[in-house]
């Protein structure tokens, strides 16, 4: 298993916020949003909302979901499943690990 890609320091992402990591870094089909929940845990989803073009990294993270900044579709942080319309298509969740204050992303690996 790979060591993952170091994409940011934990200090770069405030609780309840997200940052987008370019697909040039992640090597994935879409940019990946690193989203940090209110408890401080990090999660990763494909960045582009499956409904219309909007960055989930700019979304509102709360109660286990990220809410799209455009039309408030909700996606489960852990699974990428749609938790609220208008989106109907689930997004992709990726595995994230935090070691020594650094965030490591494992693109296309399912979260544990």
């Amino acid at each position, binding site marked *: 298993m790979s060591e993952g890609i170091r994409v940011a320091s934990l200090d770069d992402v*405030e609780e*309840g*916020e997200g940052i987008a990591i370019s697909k040039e870094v992640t090597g994935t089909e879409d940019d990946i949003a690193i989203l940090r929940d209110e408890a401080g845990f990090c999660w990763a989803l494909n960045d582009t909302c499956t409904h*219309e073009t909007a960055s989930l990294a*700019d979304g*509102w993270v709360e109660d286990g979901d990220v*809410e799209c*900044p*455009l*039309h*408030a579709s909700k996606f489960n942080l852990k699974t990428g499943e749609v938790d609220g*319309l*208008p989106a*109907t*298509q689930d997004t992709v969740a990726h595995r994230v690990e935090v070691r020594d204050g650094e965030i490591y992303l494992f693109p296309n690996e399912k979260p544990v």
Partner: protein
Amino acid sequence: MVASIVIVGGGIAGVSTAAALRSGGYDGDLTLVDAGEFPYDRPPLSKDYLAGKQELAALALQPAEWYDDQEIRLANRTTVAALRPAEAGVELSDGTVLPADRVVLATGAHAARPPIPGATSDRVHVLRTAEDADGLRKALLPGARLLVVGGGLIGAEAASTALGLGCEVTLVDPLTPPLAAAVGEETATWLHDLHAERGISVLTAGVDAFEETAGGIAARLNSEHAPRDFDAVLLGVGMRAETTLAEAAGLEVTGGIVVDAGQTTSNPAVLAVGDPTRRRVDGVLQRPAEHWEAAQHDGTRAAATILGTPQPEPTAAWFWTDRHGLHVEGVGRMADAGHTVVRGTPGDGPFSVFAIDDGRVVGAVAVDDTKAVRASRRMIDGRLAVDLDDLADSGTDLRKLLRAAKG
């Protein structure tokens, strides 16, 4: 025990009701009757769909397999002829009678066509359905002269889309500025002025009459003597609740199907959700909400009523609109506020305006700043007091401000 439910209408309210019933544990018979090929989402009809950037299939409210997965019988291309609550049934237009212990009316509304002489011309469009959008789009050729009557949400969105397609657009509304009640006077003015800045001819006028001409349609405005020539007209002047079935079934209808806080009509076996409804709270009929999320929430409430589960917590009303490349959102109430606080500078990037009453946020409207609206909604719902200077400072992180207010 409720063993069969028929939902009449497949807009966001009807589909949300079906989804909420299943997620709430209802495992009985569930039928969704819809006149169209499949239930689709309407907001894009004045935006990307009208612009030809989206196919109707992309607007499906749920993928086709969802109905099978959820064991929802989608009776598409079907209409309901009559409700028969006394017999616990619903009669379809082909004479079939479906058993229905509960009926949920999600019959939507029609685009209003006021009785202006000549308004029945084929060149006078309305915009409510995909068919309406298809018809209008055919008229939106580059250089076509389009008159948009009404500068509210639909009119402004369609005018912006038509401008983007290269049409020569004129927008008339008797009110200046339109939408003041929804977004507050100052933002309404800024938004309305944007039309002229982007190249739309904006007039403060009503329309007295339309007359078909050799190759177009003339509009007589009440502000001037000579008629103006156009190729097409769009009426964006509001909606009229679809209440035919409700009235025939003897339900109470007053400018909409009257429902209680749990979406139940005057007949306890019949509920109603979304645009055709008006809620009565403490004996007072409320204005219809007429927004996407309100319809969705109605569905959640109707399902809770049928299932006997707790109603969701009420939340401040929210809507969005897009025009001239800007994303606008509003939450709560902007009218009748004590005063307003502005964050950012209108015309210079994202900005938001907060309505303040008694030191608390009661409403907000934001241009390209959805976080301000999401934060405001939580302030409104939680009745949280925040420092108004911090609120106005665009350097303040509103999430942090919210967290501090929660304590």
